[in-house]
């Protein structure tokens, strides 16, 4: 793996990777980069020899911040199974926060969920933590991520407004479409990050 970016600038993104969520995933990545942070993801270390959970834990531990989207909380498919990877990674982040309290290397996480208060039924332990709400649209996801990052100690304030991030987003998607086309439908994580770097709004 390449050089590890600064801890204070690293944001781990834990969200669904299915095609139905792809645009929202890209919106999260794009907002993180527009705010001057480095997005980290399980996707960056795919192909390495370690087990998946070890790689994820290691990457998460290298990040001061993490964003966890729990949109896929319902059962799916013929077996009506829910996906537990995202809650599992959230659990790791919560443990990091407590373990590192007072160490000078804190961890701060945020949960995002679809609008409504259903989360109090499927993950009632989070009641009182004010998860960021979105309505599964790009503007609402950018708004949720931007407003949270804007409060973090290491944000380079000022930052582009969420509206500017949203206005630049189509340019990012167009670059991704071109990359995917040129690479015969492959889309590697570094290419996504570089496309966001090129198209992110500057102050």
């Amino acid at each position, binding site marked *: 793996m*390449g050089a590890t970016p600064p801890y204070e600038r690293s944001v781990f993104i834990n969200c669904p990777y299915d095609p139905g969520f792809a645009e929202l995933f890209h919106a999260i990545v794009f907002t993180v980069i527009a705010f001057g*942070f480095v997005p980290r993801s399980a996707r960056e270390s795919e192909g390495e020899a370690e087990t998946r959970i070890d790689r994820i834990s290691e990457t998460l531990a290298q990040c001061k911040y993490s964003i966890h989207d729990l949109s896929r909380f319902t059962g799916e498919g013929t077996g009506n199974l829910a996906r537990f990877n995202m809650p599992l990674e959230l659990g790791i982040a919560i443990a990091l926060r407590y373990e590192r309290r007072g160490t000078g290397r804190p961890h701060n996480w945020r949960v995002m969920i679809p609008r409504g208060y259903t989360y109090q039924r499927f993950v009632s332990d989070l009641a009182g933590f004010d998860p960021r709400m979105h309505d599964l649209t790009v503007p609402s996801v950018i708004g949720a991520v931007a407003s949270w990052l804007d409060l973090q100690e290491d944000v380079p304030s000022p930052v582009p407004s969420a509206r500017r991030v949203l206005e630049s987003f189509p340019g990012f998607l167009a670059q991704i479409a071109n990359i995917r086309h040129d690479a015969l439908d492959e889309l590697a994580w570094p290419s996504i990050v570089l496309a966001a770097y090129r198209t992110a709004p500057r102050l």
Partner: protein
Amino acid sequence: MRVFLSHSRENSAAASRLAQALKQNQIEVLMSPQTAPKDEGWRQATEREIGQAGAFLFLIGPGLESDREQQFEWLTALQGDPGRSKTMIPVLVGDVHLPPFLRDRIPLHLDTISPDFLGLIGRIKHLLQYPFEVVDPESYERGRKAQKEGLEEVKRFALALKAAQVSLPRDRHVER
């Protein structure tokens, strides 16, 4: 103009006095409810008040890190104004730092022992009329450079990853 006055529970007394002084000077003040209204929760009521505001006064005092309600007010204010078109004025109570999202602002100060409400209100009225004066050009420039450095860090990291040829074959096949 309606102004939302955000404050921590610890600064409730100072906030009430400031709100009263603002009202006496014909500035309509919105605040989160002291207690949740019967027909809606505290958060919904606060969201409604913040949505009606055309500008924000952020009363910043000690103990804000642990004040979940004030953090909620900040998040709601920021998420509800994606274009950052509303005026945001920080008012510091005591020796405290500005929160990150207000670092490029020139703060006003409220001395709770011998408060000069008249002077403070005059300054607030002026800034509501000339909102660009609340932005500190030097802090803005520092932020601009920091964002640029952050973006260069992103580029370095992505290129290093690319050089290491770490990639996922086809993202359309990934399930979690």
